[in-house]
């Protein structure tokens, strides 16, 4: 990967924090570690373009300080298994081969054995981490039909490489996460997602997929202007309305239809797959999964149960 345009700055402040979630929608209680702010991938729909008004990428290299913050959070939590991720304000793996920021975190979580670290990425390179990986690190990939990757995620790894990297992570003893996020409604998307799920089922051991998230495309109003300016047909094909949180989302009727389609396709391949919706409403949860998820706490409980099922007493 060409790193010439990356400018490195030291970041300070609160690095480990709760995922901000979004108003009136259910959030999974994720903890984010802002190791890096900004991304070199430049996906067309990326909300970082609206939230981070800075072209350079900020990197926090003070790993001991970050680990102390993480440890403090883990030690203070007695009821739940915390999940931490570095992929909220950046891609977890894209710069890691050069910067090597993940290794000490992976080692810390492996020794602590009390919480999970998720490395969420669209960049399919984990070889440099292979010697350090352990079950307490979840390697996750954002997945989308290759058609979308080619047009909207131009600087990322192709789908087959992501899936092969995920399989490699499974072979190295890690659980894998899959993120169907953002799911994009475009002409003929149904068939493409069907093929995508076929590929996933063929390449990965679905019993070692710890979680699958689904989130349909949503974006703040500022991005609508950008999509219009850039004439993004794929991104604007569906019917959008303003949600209660002010973001644009596909109209509810469409969201339910698409979530159901994906949910059913995934469940048909592995009944016990743990699928959750990212930033969705209670009524959508009910319609898609049949589960009553009244609040964040209920969803966090589902995660605890899933982790307990997979790790038993080892966490």
């Amino acid at each position: 990967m060409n790193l010439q345009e990356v400018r490195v700055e030291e970041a300070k402040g609160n690095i480990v924090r709760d995922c901000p979630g979004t108003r009136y929608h259910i959030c999974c209680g994720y903890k984010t570690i802002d190791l890096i702010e900004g991304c070199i991938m430049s996906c067309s729909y990326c909300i970082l373009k609206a939230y981070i008004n800075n072209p350079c990428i900020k990197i926090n290299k003070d790993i001991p300080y970050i680990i102390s913050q993480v440890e403090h959070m883990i030690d203070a939590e007695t009821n739940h298994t915390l999940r931490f991720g570095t992929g909220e304000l950046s891609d977890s793996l894209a710069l890691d081969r050069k910067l090597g920021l993940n290794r000490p975190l992976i080692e810390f979580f492996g020794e602590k054995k009390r919480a999970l670290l998720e490395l969420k990425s669209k960049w399919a390179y984990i070889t440099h981490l292979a010697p350090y990986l352990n079950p307490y690190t979840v390697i996750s990939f954002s997945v989308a039909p290759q058609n979308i990757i080619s047009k909207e995620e131009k600087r990322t790894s192709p789908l087959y490489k992501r899936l092969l990297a995920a399989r490699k992570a499974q072979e190295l003893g890690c659980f894998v996460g899959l993120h169907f996020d953002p799911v994009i409604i475009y002409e003929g998307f149904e068939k493409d997602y069907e093929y995508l799920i076929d590929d996933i089922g063929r390449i990965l051991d679905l019993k070692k997929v710890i979680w699958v998230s689904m989130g349909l495309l949503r974006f703040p109003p500022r991005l609508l202007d950008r999509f219009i300016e850039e004439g993004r047909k794929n991104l604007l094909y569906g019917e959008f309305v303003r949600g209660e949180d002010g973001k644009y989302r596909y109209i509810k009727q469409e969201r339910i239809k698409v979530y159901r389609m994906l949910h059913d396709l995934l469940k048909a391949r592995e009944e016990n797959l743990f699928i959750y919706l990212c930033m969705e409403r209670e009524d959508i949860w009910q319609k898609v999964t049949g589960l009553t998820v009244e609040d964040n706490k209920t969803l966090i409980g589902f995660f605890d149960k899933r982790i307990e099922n997979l790790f038993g007493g080892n966490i």
Partner: protein
Amino acid sequence: MKTIDIDHININDRRFCISYPMYDSTLLSSINKIGIIQPVILLNTMPYVVITGFKRTLTAIQAGFTKIPSVIVDVSEKDALLYAIHDNIKRGLNIVEKGHCIERMLHMGFSLTEIHETMILLSLDPHEKIVERLTAVADMEDTFKAFITTKGIAMKQVEMLMYFSSEERSEIIDILTSIHTTESFIREILELLNLVKIKKGGIDFDSLKNVPDAQELKKILKKLVNPILVSLEEELKRIKLLCALSPDIDIKVDPFFEKGYIDMLIRAKTEDKAKDAIEKLRNILNKGYIRSILELTRG
């Protein structure tokens, strides 16, 4: 100050001219009544070139004047342009005029730093993207410039209009000129038109011609962009009509049918009025209309 024969001025040399539009009926009346009070500034070349006062010069010609009070200066081309800009800053420039300033500065080889300094004086963000957009405005066809200055529309909407081809812009301007519009309405319409173009691959302008008013235009476009939402709105309207709600009762549904609940409002001044309203609501409930409305919010 001198009085100069207008014939000695090259009015086709407009390198320092930033004004738009060029003709002003108020100025014409004023000049007709009391003549030109403030002299124009001319560059000392032969023929002379107007630095400031282009509108006054053209209006004087229109009013039949053959001479004009002038101040002749010997300055560099760059300084002359800065004179022209600074002479006009105090009156507040429109978007086209700001575009002319930036475009002329670029053309005369001002550095980006100098341009950014002027942009701050013009109340513009000194960003390269704004420079690009304003120079594009300066290069636009006259119908476009006339439309955006007449309607006084903001830069955001100007940009949205610029996403279209010149043929499409011409059609859009024709439509928007033929109906009464407000700025917020123009913003909505331009957003909808852009979405139609991107989603459908083009705009069927024939279907938009002869719309009686702004609301009808918006309705047609909204149906193309938000067909599901429009059908939900129509269904809600139909059910509400069946409910025959009296003015003291209202059923409020989220405008985008996102919220999974509805609000029912009763306005009552007395206990009896409250009882009446509750009874009416019970009647609506028994007929299944509330259930039908709730169904609309459930996707």
